[in-house]
């Protein structure tokens, strides 16, 4: 779906002596179709700049970005500002019309989308009277009204209350069920680890780490039970149905706090020795902090 190869983006700064600043450094990865891919990173990591490259608002200094042929894209910008003299219906009409949607298809889609984003009853209201959360939802509606194959969302949870966040969360899941490809940037790690198939951690213009679905499943478990390494232990952990990892010296079983008791009972029933129980290092939050360590001058 999207293939990024060695992308570098530089800008020039300074009034007299123009200095080159590397905003993005040698970025390469692929986003397959029907996947939810998130880019996380501290402020100023280059996430939004990267999205602008994909959308061709800026051009890479070197490297290539390939998108599948004639793919339709829906985009939600960060902190969107729309033509506030338009009503929601007119905004969606503009979106639909620019994609060449017919009047009847637009009418059908309008009701579905408005229902999805929870803005029923606000269709004829001017956007200047919308709250920040409502504007965000209007933006999401405008991004998906034409039923795009690729949806790019820049900080979709920004400015939303818990209900709004849940709405966006459910909507992204629904889009995935509809076989859409979703690329989004977010700071809300809990949502990212629950939603995504892959997560790229970006810092200082570089992709530092790409986490796969397996790592993300582990990341959702906040407790780690360490057991001694043996063939029997490995076999039992495999059969247990819990998430686990094994190396030469020990085996780790990853569980939620709610699963802890039953997991311990399982281990004790099978006569496996528990060496330690500790908070998991594999959570996305831990991986994120470890990866972007030193991003801020204050030492964070």
């Amino acid at each position, binding site marked *: 779906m999207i293939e990024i190869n060695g992308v570098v983006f530089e*800008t020039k700064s300074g009034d007299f002596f123009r200095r080159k600043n590397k905003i993005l450094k040698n970025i390469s990865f692929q986003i397959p179709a029907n996947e939810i891919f998130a880019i996380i990173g501290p402020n100023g990591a280059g996430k939004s*700049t990267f999205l*602008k490259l994909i*959308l061709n*608002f*800026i*051009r890479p200094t070197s490297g290539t970005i390939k998108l599948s042929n004639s793919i*339709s*894209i*829906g*985009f939600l*910008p960060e*902190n*969107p*500002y*729309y*033509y506030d*003299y*338009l009503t929601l219906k*007119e905004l969606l*009409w*503009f*979106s639909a*019309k*620019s*994609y*060449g949607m017919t009047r009847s298809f637009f009418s059908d889609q309008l009701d579905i989308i408005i229902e999805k984003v929870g803005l029923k009853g606000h269709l004829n209201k001017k956007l200047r009277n919308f709250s920040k959360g409502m504007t965000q939802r209007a*933006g999401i509606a*405008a*991004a998906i009204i034409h039923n795009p194959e690729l949806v*790019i969302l820049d900080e979709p949870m920004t400015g939303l209350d818990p209900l709004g966040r849940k709405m966006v969360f459910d909507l992204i899941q629904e889009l995935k069920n509809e076989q859409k490809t979703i690329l989004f940037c977010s700071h809300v790690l809990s949502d990212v680890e629950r939603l995504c198939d892959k997560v790229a951690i970006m810092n200082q213009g570089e992709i530092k780490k790409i986490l796969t679905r397996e790592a993300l499943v582990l990341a959702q478990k906040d407790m780690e039970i360490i057991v001694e390494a043996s063939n029997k232990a490995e076999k039992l952990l495999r059969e247990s149905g819990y998430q686990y990892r094994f190396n030469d010296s020990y085996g780790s079983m990853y569980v939620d706090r709610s699963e802890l008791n039953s997991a311990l009972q399982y281990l004790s029933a099978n006569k496996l020795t528990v060496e330690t129980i500790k908070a998991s290092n594999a959570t996305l939050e831990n991986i994120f902090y470890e990866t972007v360590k030193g991003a801020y001058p204050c030492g964070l």
Partner: protein
Amino acid sequence: MWPLAAITFWEGVRSRVLYGIFLFSLFIMALSFIFVNFFMKDIGKIAVDFNLSAISFAGLLIAVSLSVNLIAKDLEKKTIYFVLSKPISRPCYILGKYAGITLLVLFAYLLLGLLSAITLFLLKSRYGQYFLDFSWMAYLQGIYFDFLKISLLNAVILFFSTFASSSFIVLLFSICTYIVGQSISEVINFLGMEHRTLIINDEIVKYIIDAIKYILPNFGFFDFKIQAAHGMLANWQDIILISGYGLFYIGMLLCLSIYLFSRKELL
């Protein structure tokens, strides 16, 4: 392109600035009922000149207040990301914005033209003896040339918007271009350049003025208010020449705007 042109047109129609401009123009037109009484013999000429000036001034205000913000506001508020993420290419963006503002100016000129025609009709009915030279055709030609002038000014504004960093800079460049373009003919006439009897001997000044004459659009070329006031019709050659000049300049400015905007990094 057309959805963008449509919402640009709506932006103008819903703008309070436009209502202010309309009210101001109506006030000036209404004022002509009183004002013409100061020029008894020339009531007809003054009335036409006064009404055409009101329309021209309204067009200028629309260009200065609305066109200046067309692209600059999209860039400042980052609405451009929303628009260009649609299948709207950058050339279509420029053309859509231009088509929208041109439609708005056309709408304003039709409305103001109608209102000023009512004003002139009432004055003509009251002071018929002073309207002997009056010609509706010349009056319409005056409006048409002025519409062409404002369309050209809008293209100039759009051109500056593609590279200037703020709407204030766009406004400044556009007003300077308009003032120089409006007065360049008079400056050339004053210096006697048309007859090659330069009253100043500095060759460099001559070349600079020559360059300005050819580079900047000559807005004075479109000023037909005096001819319209005297009921003088422009001949077909003039209409074709002036229309061609205006359209050529507009086309050239739009091409340049598209070229510059297509190269712009929207960071």
